[in-house]
């Protein structure tokens, strides 16, 4: 997928002197392509989210996202007491799977990574300009920050996944498990791709420094992708975690 966006050097960038390729809109090929890709991704995540919502509350067995359940029977309750009152042994009580506090933190981290991303772009656009030579204004620092925050988000997610597994929820436990892990897994994969992408950029930046029109584009398309992954999470966080 990223190929479309990364297909560097393909027709469309200036730099061949008088052989400059004419473009109708004066826009960069790759930027148009990445926006088309993002459009496509909208539909991809719409399908995933729909599926999660369709299967919400259809699972035959627990654990459940927001409710307390019971390992031995199918009683569901808003509180542990309710479940036990319904005759579930304390040992068999299953607590709601979703951990809002933790996910709120990871959400915050991802949101802030978007800020870092725009600052990184800012850094490349102004590379070499006065004031931008300071490390905390430069693209290297902010690219690194973005990647780190992305990685942190992934850390949170792997922590989340493992704890879910411990609480007895895997992709083959119930419909909730299948659709939840697939949805968040797809998003996580997107984040992972983004992190790799960022690290590649950082690597190039280290090696020869990112500056100039073509490099701005290089970072810009990555930024667009990154922000999109971010907004998808904004939707997921609300629809899957907060709303019941």
């Amino acid at each position, binding site marked *: 997928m990223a190929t479309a966006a990364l297909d560097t050097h393909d027709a469309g960038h200036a730099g061949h002197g008088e052989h400059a390729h004419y473009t109708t809109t004066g826009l960069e090929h790759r930027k148009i392509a990445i926006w088309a890709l993002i459009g496509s991704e909208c539909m991809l995540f719409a399908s995933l989210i729909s599926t999660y919502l369709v299967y919400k509350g259809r699972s035959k067995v627990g654990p459940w996202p927001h409710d307390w359940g019971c390992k031995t029977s199918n009683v569901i309750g808003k509180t542990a007491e309710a479940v036990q009152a319904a005759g579930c042994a304390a040992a068999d009580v299953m607590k709601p799977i979703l951990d809002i506090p933790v996910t709120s933190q990871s959400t915050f981290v991802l949101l802030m990574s978007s800020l870092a991303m725009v600052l990184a772009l800012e850094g490349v656009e102004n590379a070499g300009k006065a004031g931008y030579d300071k490390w905390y204004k430069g693209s290297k620092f902010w690219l690194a920050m973005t990647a780190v925050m992305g990685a942190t988000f992934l850390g949170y997610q792997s922590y989340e996944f493992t704890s879910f597994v411990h609480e007895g929820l895997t992709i083959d436990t119930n419909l909730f498990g299948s659709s939840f892990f697939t949805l968040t897994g797809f998003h996580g994969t997107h984040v992972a791709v983004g992190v790799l992408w960022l690290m590649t950029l950082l690597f190039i930046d280290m090696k020869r420094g990112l500056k100039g029109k073509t490099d701005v584009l290089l970072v810009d398309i990555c930024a667009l992708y990154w922000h999109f992954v971010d907004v998808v999470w904004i939707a997921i*966080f609300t629809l899957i975690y907060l709303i019941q």
Partner: protein
Amino acid sequence: MSDHTAATAVDRAHADHHEHPTWKQYKWVALWLTLITAVEVWVYYTPFRESSLFAPALLVMSAAKFTIVVMFYMHLKYDHWIFRRLFVGSLFIATATLFALMFLFHKLKIG
């Protein structure tokens, strides 16, 4: 997509790089994102959670977050009209499909 708009495309493209979201905006956006998220999580722990307005309220808030990120961080507000069309168009069809599916699977109260 009339001759007119398409023709202007070329000129717009040059203008294109001048206007640009600024440092200040970036920080404000970040602040807003944080605030809204905070509110979202906060209401989750209030009795409001049981209210029938809870879901709509959250949807509005995340829609707001979604929009400002797209407009400023993805600088769609300042960018070429073609990008706007590419994204808004796709997003429209995607969300419409999502709602249609919710309706078909009786997840919406209507019908």
